């Protein structure tokens, strides 16, 4: 089972890495770096110069740097796919009796295959905002499914761990609500981004303030909901750390991580509001939302498993 454990963790961490590189592709403008899929400019490896392009491909689209950035994300996605295949096989072999382990691994397998194909659709459509948003949201779901699988596996491998722990029961509905709101917020974020992109195309000479104003109420909704989510996350994590008794190390780490990630996410959102949606800020804002959802999930899973506090029973 050690192999399964390693692959499970590896797949989970790899998904968060691919979410980061995907964000990088997006903000560097490399989304159409390879205008075709699955090949790149008609080749399995991107061309290194214009004369390597096949004649039927439009040479004006070729940018060496962008092609390799986009291709890098595809390759990482493929590696992730292979990791998940191995994980699923190992899960079916070694964890047959534990549905909370093998079922998520199969779901992850379907999701990663779908993501790969869907990425091709994103390119074919010329980066249609709805498809780009779906690509990110699907990858968030994949990350959470794999994280859930990994946590279930940890519980199976070491059932005694955390047996002495007890947590404030009232936190569960709060955390669940925060998690749902965070997911909604991520979806709204993708819509905001899509709307800003349209603004940029229609009025390329505008500026950040003009575009944000033209985009309408969605930007206000995103800002307000962001504050709410961060507030809830910080409160839940602080309550957990203060009131939990003999908490499991992973749960404690998740609570600390949640405080760190939520704070950084708030600062990033503020920075983007004040200084403009600079590329680096965008990449980390996107990634932090994935980490936020992940930390919330870890806490939630532990809370549901453990005993309530003594005075709450």
């Amino acid at each position, binding site marked *: 089972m050690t192999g399964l454990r390693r692959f499970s963790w590896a797949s989970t961490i790899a998904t968060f890495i691919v979410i*980061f590189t995907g964000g990088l592709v997006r903000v*560097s403008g490399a989304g159409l770096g390879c205008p075709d899929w699955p090949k790149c400019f008609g080749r399995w490896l991107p061309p290194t110069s214009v004369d390597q392009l096949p004649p039927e491909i439009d040479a004006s689209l070729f940018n060496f740097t962008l092609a390799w950035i986009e291709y890098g994300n595809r390759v990482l996605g493929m590696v992730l796919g292979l990791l998940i295949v191995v994980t699923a096989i190992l899960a079916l072999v070694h964890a047959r009796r534990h549905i909370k382990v093998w079922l998520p691994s199969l779901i992850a397998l379907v999701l990663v295959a779908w993501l790969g194909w869907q990425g091709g659709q994103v390119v074919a459509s010329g980066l249609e905002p709805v498809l780009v948003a779906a690509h990110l949201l699907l990858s968030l779901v994949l990350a959470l499914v794999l994280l859930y699988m990994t946590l279930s596996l940890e519980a199976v491998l070491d059932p005694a761990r955390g047996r002495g722990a007890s947590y404030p029961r009232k936190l569960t509905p709060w955390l669940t609500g925060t998690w749902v709101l965070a997911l909604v917020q991520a979806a709204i974020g993708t819509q905001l981004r899509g709307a800003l992109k349209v603004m940029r195309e229609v*009025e390329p*000479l505008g500026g950040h303030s003009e575009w944000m104003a033209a985009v309408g109420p969605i930007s206000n909704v995103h800002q307000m909901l962001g504050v709410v989510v961060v507030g809830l996350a910080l409160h839940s994590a602080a309550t957990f750390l203060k009131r939990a008794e003999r908490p499991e190390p992973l749960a404690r780490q998740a609570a*600390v991580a949640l405080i*760190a990630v939520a704070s950084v996410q708030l600062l990033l959102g503020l920075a983007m509001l004040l200084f403009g949606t600079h590329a680096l800020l965008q990449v*980390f804002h996107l990634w932090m939302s994935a980490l936020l959802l992940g930390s919330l999930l870890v806490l939630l899973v532990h809370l549901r498993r453990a005993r309530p506090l003594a005075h709450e029973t």
Partner: protein
Amino acid sequence: MSKGTQLGGLIAGAIVAVTLAVCAGIVLSEADRSKREIPVLGTVPEFEFTTRDGKEFTRDDLLGRISVVDFFFTSCVTACPVMSGSMGELYRAFDDTDEVQFVSISVQPSVDTPAVLRAYAEEQGVTDDRWQFLTGPLAGVVTLSEQGFMLPADNLPMGHSTKFALVDRRGRIRGYYNGMENKPMIKLREQIMVLLETDVSARGAAASAAAEPPRVFRRRFYVSPVAWTGVCSLSVWR
């Protein structure tokens, strides 16, 4: 879990984040730089055509501005509506500046007289001089297309090229974009923006009269790639 390990964990997390930020910074720098490297493919030669208002339009009218040039004819029912649609979108997108102009040259001058071009312009919703429709002697048009822009001009009028040519403020051809497809138009828009920001000294008289170049929203994130690569690889190796 001790406070020490907790702090250690946070520091490790911070180091990972900084390393990622540095590597991401390099990638973004390089991507930005690569988008600004637009090649020079040729120079537009002298020509002399007539606008829809009966005025003369020559190579000099291309200088000092960024121009998008294509070849069309008004009675074209297949390619030209798509091309004019794309050109129209660009025309409306850049309506806040005088520094970008659009030039459509007819390959059927026998039919496309200035009056016909006026009607066509009206149909396209063109209300100013930012989009010029030109007509001139067929031989001149063929020469300009084939030798000037290196675009084929056989079997006119149907055989005109569907490419848009991007011309900079000095009359140099900087790129060709298929006017029938969506993705090349995205790239064209991007490269117009890059040209607007660069080579500001070549801005025309009309533009210089304005207070400053059009305010362009761009990401300022260029740092020395060598320095960043060094830092990034050191962290990864460590």
